[in-house]
């Protein structure tokens, strides 16, 4: 198999030229996305050009990395699969962005097709304004097209991405919940080596439907993970998400959520645990379009080494969105003097009868608490880990599915062991 390395914006565009006639999806949309990507480039890659939305996160290292096309080896994936947490549920597994039926166990109550067979970009994504969405739209080869029929409670489903060294892939996922449908989606991303995982999600939650979306980003420490999610919530619908970012050298999870029907609920909670030279960016835009909707965000950061955490949260309340209840909190625990947190909350309110609040805290581990634990015989490293877990407990408590929360809790423990090593 021949492998051709490609680097930077030009490399991705060259890859598109090579693949253009073989990719799924509407070629006009892809060409338009390619134009948008050519104009914008990778954010931060060209010095002197800095977009406000990418103020704290530069993708220069992505532009400098080289990826292989096509990916040469999938030999390492079986050991990687063994690394996935054990949880008894149907699963849809992708390796380097390609659906792998032999590793998957399809869900009985969720309709599934591959993007490769049924390419739908969805209605919400905006390649024009998001360079990484443009990149995804241009190069998407596969992904999960999921839908749950009206009134069906589909239970728990795993969406798994496994990646190998030097792969670059851009999955396109669409999730549609019909009225009164329910689904808990546990998204797991793992891998080995230096690769790029750049998924885009298009999520539609219909009237009275509820999607619980729990995301464990545990990518390899030299990988790049950029995920952009668009979600629209109809009347009395709920999108309840929790994202745990542990892995990747540079990660950004960006969510654009529109509350377009009255009494909708959006939860965009999460936690970022970083060490070494990791950088993770949690960016959200919540649009209160309809009245009487609720949005909640609590994001906790635990930052060790020389890591950098970013939280950008924007709440927009339209004139019609009276009785909006919006809350946003970003908290950071800095475990080292070289760690950094950047927080940018933004409220834009055009309605007059709303309740919106935001806050941020930054601190170190409490020395009195640490001494109390150690005086009881608990070794320093274990005591620190207990306090960090305590700090995260409030955040993780937002995940009500016991088995799913258990997966996150084990991942948090694993993170701490990695820091101690």
């Amino acid at each position, binding site marked *: 198999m021949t492998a051709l390395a490609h680097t930077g914006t030009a490399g991705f565009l060259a890859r598109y030229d090579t693949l253009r006639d073989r990719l799924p999806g509407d070629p006009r949309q892809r060409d338009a996305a390619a134009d948008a990507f050519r104009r914008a480039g990778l954010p931060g890659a060209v010095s002197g050009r800095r977009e406000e939305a990418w103020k704290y996160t530069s993708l220069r290292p992505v532009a400098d990395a080289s990826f292989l096309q096509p990916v040469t080896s999938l030999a390492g994936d079986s050991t990687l699969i063994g690394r996935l947490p054990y949880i008894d549920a149907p699963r849809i597994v992708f390796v380097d962005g390609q659906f792998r039926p032999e590793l998957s166990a399809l869900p009985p109550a969720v309709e599934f097709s591959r993007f490769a067979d049924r390419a739908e970009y969805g209605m919400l994504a905006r390649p024009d304004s998001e360079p990484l969405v443009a990149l995804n739209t241009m190069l998407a080869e596969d992904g999960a097209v999921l839908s749950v029929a009206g009134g069906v409670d589909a239970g728990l489903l795993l969406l798994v991405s496994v990646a190998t060294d030097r792969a670059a892939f851009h999955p396109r996922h669409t999730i549609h919940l019909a009225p009164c449908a329910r689904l808990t989606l546990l998204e797991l991303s793992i891998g080995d080596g230096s690769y790029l995982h750049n998924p885009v999600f298009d999520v539609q939650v219909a009237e009275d439907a509820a999607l619980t979306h729990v995301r464990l980003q545990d990518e390899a420490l030299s990988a790049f993970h950029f995920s952009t999610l668009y979600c629209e919530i109809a009347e009395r619908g709920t999108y309840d998400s929790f994202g745990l970012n542990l892995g990747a050298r540079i990660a950004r999870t960006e969510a654009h959520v529109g509350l377009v029907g009255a009494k909708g609920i959006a939860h965009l909670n999460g936690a970022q645990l970083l060490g070494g030279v990791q950088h993770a960016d949690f960016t959200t835009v919540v649009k209160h379009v309809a009245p009487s909707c609720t949005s909640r965000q609590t994001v906790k950061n635990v930052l060790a080494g020389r890591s950098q955490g970013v939280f950008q949260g924007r709440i927009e309340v339209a004139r019609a969105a009276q009785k909006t209840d919006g809350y946003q909190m970003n908290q950071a625990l800095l475990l080292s003097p070289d760690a950094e947190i950047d927080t940018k909350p933004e409220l834009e309110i055009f309605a007059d009868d709303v309740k919106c609040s935001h806050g941020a805290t930054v601190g170190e581990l409490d020395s009195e608490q640490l001494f109390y*634990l150690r*005086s009881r*015989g608990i070794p*320093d490293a274990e005591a620190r880990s*207990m*306090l960090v*877990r305590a700090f995260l407990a409030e955040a993780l408590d937002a995940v009500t599915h016991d088995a799913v929360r258990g997966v996150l809790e084990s991942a948090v423990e694993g993170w701490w062991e990695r820091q101690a090593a």
Partner: protein
Amino acid sequence: MLEIRGLSAAIEEKPILQGIDLTVPQGEVHAIMGPNGSGKSTLAYVLSGREDYVVTAGSVTFDGRDLLAMAPEERAAAGLFLAFQYPVELPGVGNANFLRTALNALRRSRGESELDAVQFLKLARAETKRLAMPDDMLRRNVNVGFSGGEKKRNEVLQMAILRPRLAILDETDSGLDIDALKIVADGVNALRGPDFSALVITHYQRLLDYIVPDRVHVLSGGRFVRSGGPELAHELEAKGYVGMVAETV
């Protein structure tokens, strides 16, 4: 078992302890009394290894080992326990999980097998019952939302479960009503025996009616000014600290 020789300590360069000498033989309970600011709590913190305090002179040995060279968790593993004057709140840490982690850390250090959750709960429930603590105390977060008395009882619960060889009780009686005081004293007395020693730090003689000490030491200005039998506590109660300190100078 505990030998303190010429111990001086400071916090932020301000000297607090100024040459403490004290020997606590195995199996004995000693009381340390003294006015506010005399250095009682500083002594407790220095012995348990709190880092804000700097030892400027002297030595402390515990079973012949250099206590001051040990980390706080090593001191606990050696059998030292401090019941805090102001127990620390740990939001997000369950009391049962905290106690089991501590007990298992001590058991590991002694080469004993760890207790699983079931074994531990059996032990913990028996102790909470003996200390007349409500059952939900184990389920709640450590000291969060506890009343002053509940916090002190929680300290004694930890002591009962961790079974130290030397316990330092730093004003465990403050904030307790008479019923709670008796329960706490019973908890301490239950541990008394040839393998248990204690330093009971208190402002008032009242606690010493229930935990009768072998020796009483009076601390003032960072050094001991008097030592004697349990009757010294009563003398102190009658004369007050000012009277007694004036007598000794």
